[in-house]
């Protein structure tokens, strides 16, 4: 039952491109068994995040309630509901990486970007996320940058990764 009064926190309206991406994801996934997760993955793949305003059309298409969809999105840390930075760095914080000193890297990256896990740097270059095991324990510590795996990460290596992210030729756009 929707109120007729103006709702308080209306989500940011979808752009035409987002709407199109949602339609594509729905069309691709709606007939799969357990369609919601593959659909959300596809959407995040295309848009970088799952816009809150996409919940009603997704729910309608899959015969779910909006709360159902909201519950799933919030359950999985991997799904973002705000746009990420230009690059996403996922640093592994699991046991093997910890044993090989990833806590120093955690401190370093947070200090350098001035953010904590789950945040995006002020220049919009990097979103920093924590992951727990990338299956790359033999080459700990490990990280993912934009989906690309890197092992034996040192401070220097991490700095080079971050430099590339920050100076990617897109700074001027901001």
């Amino acid at each position, binding site marked *: *039952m929707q*109120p007729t009064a103006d709702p308080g*926190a209306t989500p940011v309206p979808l752009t035409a491109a987002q709407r199109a991406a949602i339609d594509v994801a729905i069309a691709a996934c709606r007939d799969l068994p357990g369609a919601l997760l593959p659909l959300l993955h596809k959407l995040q793949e295309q848009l970088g995040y799952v816009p809150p305003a996409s919940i009603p059309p997704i729910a*309608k298409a899959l*015969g779910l*309630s*909006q709360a*159902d969809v909201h*519950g799933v999105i919030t359950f999985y840390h991997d799904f973002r509901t705000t746009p990420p930075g230009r690059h996403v760095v996922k640093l592994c914080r699991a046991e093997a990486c910890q044993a090989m000193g990833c806590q120093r890297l955690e401190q370093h990256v947070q200090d350098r970007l001035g953010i904590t896990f789950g945040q995006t740097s002020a220049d919009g270059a990097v979103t920093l996320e924590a992951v727990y095991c990338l299956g790359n324990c033999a080459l700990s510590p490990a990280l993912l940058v934009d989906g690309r795996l890197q092992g034996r990460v040192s401070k220097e290596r991490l700095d080079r990764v971050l430099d590339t992210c920050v100076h990617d030729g897109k700074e001027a756009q901001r």
Partner: protein
Amino acid sequence: MDSNKILDRGTPDRSARVGAPVTLQIDGVAVTVPAGTSLMRAAHDAGVKVPKLCATDSLDAFGSCRLCLVEVEGRRGYPASCTTPCEPGMKVKTQTDKLAKLRRSTMELYISDHPLDCLTCPANGNCELQDMAGVVGLREVRYGYQGENHLAAPKDQSNPYFTFDPSKCIVCSRCVRACEEIQGTFALTVQGRGFDSKIAPGPGSFLESECVSCGACVQACPTATLMEKSVYDQGQPDHSAITTCAYCGVGCSFRAEMKGDQVVRMVPHKDGRANRGHSCVKGRFAFGYATHKDRIKQPMIRASIQEPWREVTWEQAIAHAASEIRRIQGKYGRGSVGGITSSRCTNEETYLVQKLVRAAFGNNNVDTCARVCHSPTGYGLKTTLGESAGTQDFDSVMHADVVVVMGANPTDAHPVFASRMKKRLREGAQLIVIDPRKIDLVDSPHTRAAFHIQLQPGTNVAVMNALAHVVVTEGLAKVDYVRARCELPEFDKWQAFIRDPKNSPEVLGPVIGVPATTLRDAARLYATARNAAIYYGLGVTEHSQGSTTVMAIANLAMLTGNLGRPGVGVNPLRGQNNVQGSCDMGSFPHELPGYRHVSDPTVRELFGQSWGVPIDDEPGLRIPNMFDAALDGSFKALYVQGEDIAQSDPDTHHVQAALTAMECVIVQDLFINETAKYAHVFLPGASFLEKDGTFTNAERRISRVRRVMPPLAGLADWEATMALAKALGYPMHYDHPSQIMAEIAALTPTFTGVTYDKIDQLGSIQWPCNDQAPTGTPVMHVDQFVRGKGRFVITEYVATPERTSRKFPLILTTGRILSQYNVGAQTRRTANTAWHAADVLELHPHDAEARGIRDGDRVEVESRAGKTVLRAEVTERMQPGVVYTTFHHPESGANVVTTENSDWATIVRNTRSPRCRSARCWCRRRRGSRSSRRLRSSRRRCCRGGSDGRAEAGQDVQ
């Protein structure tokens, strides 16, 4: 009010689904239960209480709170008793030192993240968490409160009736499961995971969410997390009474929980057989109108409607009314006065009003708004099956495999029944929706219709004929059933008719506006189901071919053997709480109680004997006839009990003119309504909380209405009617409505066995209740039809040709929404306005675009009868060419634009731009079966407002 006094056996009754009894020992006590019963429920039956938090017998076991752990001899670990089924020979211990320690530790963890403000908590005195802390003997919380916790989580107060305080939440998911399992809306979820888990109504607040405010979550919550605001304000109630909701035709049973004579809250009664412990936003929360400041508590009179009201005593008001009636009868004749009964009042009150008219006025000028929605059902089902009522009880839907919903919108108009139906649909039953509008049931979370036959308004009979044609020609008919139970010559004639290619989906499909393949597939689905049930609403009965459609529905059900057992049947969904009852009680100008015609001398003799006066053998005036007669000058006085005819009836201007022409209008109502503006005598009414009596719901169920507070104005409605009768020189003596029911039972064959004592004993009774069925009749026509052999009736489809007019290109339909009821006299005086502050006009994007109308614009709607302004809501629920509004708010005046002759063509203008665009016009000429023509002139009334208003106007037009 101690909730523990209300029996909670922990897990639901599964006895219907499980097999042989098993015997086991619980704490040394031998107990025998049906296999599949949970250990928790079995323990409860053995008199052993197992501590619990996440379990309640209205919800499936969940096994999350870890408080109900038990030990089973020979097994490892500590299984949860709610999720462990009983097995033969089990030896179960519910209390050991180890279990006590485990439970105490678990409770300690709960309390380590729970505020310790029990003394100021609204749940104090009725808190399961508090109780369980006591039961497990919690004495300390070793973890302190310094760590991370949820104690500062902000409250959500957005819902007008309850608060959500997550700081008190133990995330047992009872609310989430109640929303899913009981209500079927799925508006709640667990947001996040682990320590961050929080119950959430989607991403926004409760008011912004999909929540329909049914109250099931509040009912399920074991703490103060979800709590009625009325309990915050007033404290816990201390006594209660079981009564029946006065809103829709579902007739939910409620526990009115009281403090002194104040209602603190209405809680659905778990043992209520119509609602099975569920409720909707109206019955559960919207009872505040009963004590609203607008209630009139003093009788009033005035000499003319231009004068202000003058407060007088009951004696003066009654004496004035009686003398006016006698004066008018002396001057204009015995037939110049009449009465209107209310389907909002009790059976007993309705009975008294018609008795007053027949015995004291001395004519048959008694009518009711409910007659209109009832008549096609009454006539159609009486002709084919033999009884003027639905065939099933509501429980029956839980046995249906295919459900057909036709011209009804149960999720808005009969929400509690809709929840039962949706539960069955989630269990795998298939749904066929036949409706011009895309109602919520067609596509809602976790339920989707297999077929939506989105017919053109006015083609109900064509749809039914096409379906029957497929069943017959494809050899899907249950021939043995028909041979054994129906009149064969009639059947053969009907079969020849229906086989005619003119009734094939290929021919009728284009008329209906639905592909022939859809009709064929739907017919196959219905005919091949083990159990298929049809539920229909005013979209069927309020139509020119209403009776024909009802008979076509009955034909189809007989043809496929879908009558006479649970899970099948033909069921009208009644609009108002007592539509069935007010019709049963003889509110028709041509029928005495029990649907017996006034021209029958035996019946007249029976009532004449009992009432001590001769009964007029001439049928009286129907409501529209009364209005016409008033304008002619031959009808001068009207006693209206509990109906707002000036707002709810179509063509307001005509009604107003008729009322203005009368010399004495007596209105008996809770509030000064629109009709009262034309009244000379106002008698204050009593709400359902202020009187004793009975209501009869859509499944023929007679339930008690119990007085929980004295009438605010001093007299209950039945007492006022009695006083009026006495002043007219026809004294009636009843000390209590039970005596009125005794008189009804003595005079009405289907009510012979009904007494208040028996209703108290059984909870409720479905008529017929007599020597053959001493405890009532849940399912009718079991071994044979009431009329003996079922009768197939030829149901010729008659098209309603449209005339075009440039001026009025659109069809206006009206209906109602979940949070409001009828003309809104009650619901507008409650916080339900949070959801429906004003009436809106729904229209299809094509129609909107053609007129330059945007969502939210103010638009002017004009018909031949008048015009009004509404806010536009552009939605694809509508078909192009058809617009829709509700009639809950008098200021929007939807009925100003509806017309008596059902010529509902309208134009819609955008007030933003003065241009008026229109392509073509729809006018509808009346055509119909003989019976529906007989009723035609009054047919509008019920759908307009007399009843629940699920009036698909397009369909209803005749």
